[in-house]
């Protein structure tokens, strides 16, 4: 049966936890992956919050999906706690491993097509970029493969459900010049990545009541998240094995090396932090340098 409710989908990612006490760096400054824990990525968390916002405001159905090893279930559970998802999808298959962004987008495209009992999603949310890979490509590539118009850096959105129209507000930094705030109208479906500064707000009493209800439901559901979880392989997703994982990746990592130090461009004078006379000389130098000319 076709449902008339708004259908929201979210794609998320399990990422290294960069928070204090959980992240571990090698002595050369690189990330120690073996010692660093994994969590739902912070940008994925923001995307999940945006989905909850849609659920509270428009009474939407929410599905969350991720591609990853079985342990990525944790990220789905954490996301469900944030967005009260009705359905969780894990796309997990050995042949997905090593995928670049295009091959990842192929899996996510197929996964989103399976959400909501195979009905088309109205809005797909994803995070701004992953904290580890940081390419920011997977979202827009998945959008293009789905055939949905893509909007990045979204800080606010609203939906006219009856007329199937969305309004999104984007914050676009223009390289060192200024920021642009852009308001866009687009027919559904759309695909958006949520800007890290996004904050959902619930103004009316009924919205807040609905928010608390969803939060409680989310806690109950996340405690038994496996009841909502479906796991898909390449075969059950129906993707072409030649378009996913390493075989489906146009790019390869050819080499990883330490970045050599740049040629020294300055000659540092080294002074001891405990030497008050020398610090005084530095303070004088600073004062002279930033002195504001009196008129």
């Amino acid at each position, binding site marked *: 049966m076709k449902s008339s409710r708004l259908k929201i989908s979210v794609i998320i990612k399990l990422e290294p936890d*960069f*928070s*204090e006490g959980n*992240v571990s760096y090698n002595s050369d*400054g*690189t*990330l120690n992956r073996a010692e660093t824990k994994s969590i739902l990525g*912070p940008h994925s968390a923001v995307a999940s919050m945006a989905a909850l916002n849609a659920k509270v405001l428009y009474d939407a159905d929410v599905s969350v999906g991720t591609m990853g090893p079985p342990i990525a279930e944790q990220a789905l559970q954490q996301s469900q706690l944030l967005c009260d998802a009705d359905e969780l999808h894990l796309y997990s298959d050995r042949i997905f491993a090593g995928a670049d*962004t*295009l091959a990842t*987008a192929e899996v996510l495209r197929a996964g989103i097509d399976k959400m909501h009992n195979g009905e088309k999603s109205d809005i797909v949310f994803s995070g701004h970029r992953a*904290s580890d890979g*940081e*390419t*920011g*490509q*997977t979202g*827009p590539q998945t959008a*293009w493969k789905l055939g949905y118009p*893509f909007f*990045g850096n979204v800080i606010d959105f609203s939906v006219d459900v009856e007329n199937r129209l969305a*309004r999104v507000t984007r914050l676009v*930094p*223009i*390289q*060192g*010049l*200024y920021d*642009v*705030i*852009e*308001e*866009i*109208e*687009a*027919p559904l479906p759309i695909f958006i990545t949520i800007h890290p500064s996004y904050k959902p707000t619930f103004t009316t009493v009924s919205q807040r009541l609905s928010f608390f209800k969803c939060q409680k439901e989310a806690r109950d559901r996340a405690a038994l998240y496996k009841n909502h979880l479906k796991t898909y392989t390449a075969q059950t997703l129906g993707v072409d094995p030649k378009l996913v994982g*390493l*075989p489906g*990746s*146009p*790019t*390869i*990592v*050819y080499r*990883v*090396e*330490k*970045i050599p*130090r740049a040629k020294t*461009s300055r000659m*540092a004078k*080294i*002074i001891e*932090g*405990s030497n008050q006379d020398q*610090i005084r000389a*530095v*303070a004088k*130098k600073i004062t002279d340098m930033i*002195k504001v000319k009196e008129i």
Partner: protein
Amino acid sequence: MSNISQLTSTPDPKASNEHYRHLYVVIEQEEGNLLPVNFEMLGEARRLMDGFNLRYSAEEKVVAILLGNEMRSQCDKLISYGADAVIYAENPELTYHRNPVYTRVISQIANDRDCSKKISARYSEEFKRPRFMFFSADDTGRHLSATVLAELESGLASDINKLVIDDIELKHEHKTKGQVEKYFKTLEMYRPDFSGFLWTTILCLDNRHPNNMREYHPQACSIIPGVFQPVEPDNNRKGVIVDYKATLNTDDLRVKILNRRIVKSPIDFDSHKAIVSFGRGINDSPEENIALIDTLKQELGAEVGVSLPISKKPYNISNSRLSAYITAERVIGTSGRKVAPTLYIAVGISGAMQHIAGMKESEFVIAINPDTNSPIRDECDVFIKGRMEDVLPILIEELRQQKAMVEVRS
């Protein structure tokens, strides 16, 4: 580049039926103005293709793609900065960037053989697509490159800061079925990782595995703004301007920009004489250390910057400080802003290359760091050895005394 021109290459056996030609640079415009990154991309494209022209073929070109409205006069400027040709699509619907609209038009251009004929007759019969493609690695360019390459079904490397064209030999389970194969004219795309200490070289290669043959072209990347040098503009450079009539998709045009406002970011690195930046050195007592940095900032009338790892909110600190300072907008470096103040004070910053790239133009640099082996030592004028907990209170006190003396004197 000199090493490329000196090398003599064994001829590529597949060269006779190549159908990927030229380097296309996707230009980014804002309100009809060309952003600096365009000239940097063209500069690097020029240097790479000068080497390519000597080593392989003189007939492959640097081609700029410009979409906009009433911007034709800018085409000459792109030529003076190194383009051999500019494909210019003019249409009022292209005045402002809309991802779906721009993606469709740029993909059309990349697939257009007639267009390539006007650039160079030499390869136009077999032309299928560009060999290489550059985009800017700001938010707009990153998204655009991703959707264009999804449409063209080829590979993309993002946030690149070094490029080399070379012939490589590769043995790869999926690409070559474990056999050693030679890939000619390969773009080696160097990408610094998020820590700024590792460089990953990414290649976009055709699959030559007999069970999964597939051509992946263009080899594309997005380029970090502020990294490459433009060439000296030459108004006598000759180039071709190709006027392109884009076919617009009516569905794409249903995406409408209702309103567009320019806002000045509240964080202002440009008009402050001093910038105080901090990094993971605040680690031991983040709350107290940020309070010290806050005091120093006020003492100097400075703006505050952070290193990239800090923007990932690694510490448990009060909300007011979190929202004031621990934000991506304050990041200085290749993933953030490039700054050049009179005075730059790096507190507890080790000096990853990605940070250095954002501050090396500063006039005078002071580093406060307990470790004299950290790379920041090579990038500063004064290195104060010590923990910020110990050094900052002394420095703040001395600055106050200096100020008091100045006041007494006047």
